Structure formats: C-alpha cells, structure tokens
C-alpha cells in the first residue's frame, strides 16, 4: 500500500512497504508521516504502559521515532520494521524512567508507586491496574506477557540477571492477581523476595 500499511495488520505487526522505507531513508516527510500513522498507536500504548504517565509517554514516542529516522540508514530489515521500532520505544521508555529516577522496585526499596495523573479517561482506561504497579513490574509484565520479550532480553534491557527478571515477573503477576482477586491471592511478604544476584 502506498501509505505503508496493510489492511489486515494491526499494531507493531503492521508491515511497511519497501517504497515507503526507501523514501523515509531519503528524508521524505510524507513517508515519515505514513510511518507515524502506521505505528503511533502501538508505540504510544506501549510507552504509556511502560511509563505510566501520558506526558512521559509522549516524550518517549517522540524520541523513539526520531531515533528511528536517524538510524533508518542502518536498518537492514533483518527484523520486521515494527519489531525494530518496538525495541526503540521500549529502550527509550526504560532510559527515561531511569533518568527520572522512577526505575525503582518497591518490593525492594519499600516504597509504593504513587498514583499518577494519568490524563484523559481513555488513557486511564488504557493503563488500568498497571498504573498501580511499580515501573519494573509493569515493564516485566508488559514486555514479557504482551510483547514477547524473553527473560534473556529483559535481563539485558534491565541490566540485571535472568533470574532477577524471572523473579520480578513472578512478583508482578502475583501483584496483578492480587489486584484482580484480592481474596484469592494475598501479597507475599517482602521479606521472602530477596533479589537474586
């Protein structure tokens, strides 16, 4: 398709045609707009789920798209464009959370993630219970369970061990289960959650 999308594709799985990609490499603004139209929704959704704040999610999406355009010359097409862009969004989000010192696991630090001003109603709905979890727990859940990251990839992204990633995910699932069914899954005591090294 001329605008870079295929009718039956959604989210990051949408395919980008070679012509749009070639035009974007040459700095064509219309091609850039087509790429944005195609991927802005999944990119923003992912950024919002990871960051938990609409303003930060906007910054992350902007940074990821700018990086994508800058690095487009080096993109060789080994992975689908959407998957490549998804990595850029996830990396930008984690970097931004670290920069703003929000990459803190309350299970270890003993602090609770404050409720954020989540913005519009639709955005609050999109974030849902995830807004009540810490940034690392959200990231582990979203990236592993929804975006298909492996624990090896998560460990590399978090700069921690694979067992840390597994432990973090397990605790994140327990927390989500606790939020959904408070009686069925009481939270485990923090003392039993020693960080594996």
């Amino acid at each position: 398709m001329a605008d870079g999308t295929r009718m039956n594709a959604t989210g990051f799985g949408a395919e980008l045609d070679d012509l749009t990609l070639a035009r974007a490499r040459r700095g064509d603004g219309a091609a850039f707009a087509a790429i944005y139209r195609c991927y802005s929704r999944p990119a923003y959704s992912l950024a919002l789920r990871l960051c938990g704040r609409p303003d930060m999610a906007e910054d992350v999406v902007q940074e990821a798209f700018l990086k994508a355009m800058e690095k487009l010359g080096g993109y060789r097409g080994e992975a689908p464009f959407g998957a490549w862009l998804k990595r850029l969004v996830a990396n930008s989000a984690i970097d931004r959370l670290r920069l703003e010192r929000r990459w803190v696991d309350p299970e270890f630090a003993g602090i609770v993630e404050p409720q954020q001003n989540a913005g519009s109603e639709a955005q609050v709905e999109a974030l849902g219970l995830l807004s009540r979890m810490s940034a690392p727990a959200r990231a582990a859940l979203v990236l592993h369970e929804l975006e298909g990251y492996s624990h090896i990839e998560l460990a590399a992204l978090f700069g921690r061990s694979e067992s840390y990633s597994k432990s973090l995910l397990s605790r994140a699932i327990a927390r989500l289960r606790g939020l959904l069914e408070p009686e069925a899954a009481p939270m485990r005591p923090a003392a039993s959650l020693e960080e594996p090294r």
Partner: protein
Amino acid sequence: MNPTVPFPPPPWRQYLDTLPEAEAPATLWPRLAAAQRQAQRRRRRPLWFGAAAAVLALALIAPRLLPTPATPAAPAAAGPSLALSPAADPGLRRLDDQIAQAYARGAGEDEVAVLWQARERVLASLEGPAPVVLARL
C-alpha cells in the same frame, strides 16, 4: 495451543489480553514533525558545508585542468579537436562520476543539486569564451 498456558486463561492473563490501546494525542504529530525537520537540518548542515567546500575546491582546480586552447596555427580543416570537447574535461568527468555515485547510493536531492550546479559551472567555464579555432570556423 501452548501447553504451558492453562485453559481458560487466568484472570490476570485475560486482563492483560483485553487492555485497550491508547490513541496518541493529536498534538504529538506536529511536535514530532517539527523536531524531525530540525533534526534533518542539523544532519544536513555538515553535508552542505562539505559540498560547498568541494565546489570551491573544484572552482579553484578546474581552470588548471582545462585544456589549453588550440593555437591559431592549428589546421582549421581538421575540425574540433577532442581536447576541446567538454566531455573530455577531467574536472567534468570527475563531477559526472560523483553525480552517478550520488544517484547510485540514493543521495538526497540537495546533495545531487549541488553537484549538478557545480557541473553547470564547469561546463559554462569550458564553453565561453569561444576558442579562437572555433571562432574562425
């Protein structure tokens, strides 16, 4: 079906699977497009400087590379000599090569335009003033 995923999926899994996607705010695209234009200008600036330097260098070198005009004593009946043909000019040939390479590697329109302008300048310097031999013809 994946044997590790129980059926029906647990509530937390169903919850994640049904999370709605959020639409990016309408204000994001204008902001991003402006940032992209700015980034593009920043990236192109060194290219412009490089191209301008190349054109300047060429303008300085080109006159030395030009073939010396034929002397009035040269036989008029021999027709225009090969050395007077613009296509034989080394500076022009080099520019033609650069233009071809620029197209081949998919260079931006700005870069190609600079090369074409440089070529036109060299061509103009080759064409006028007319050599004596040609004037007699």
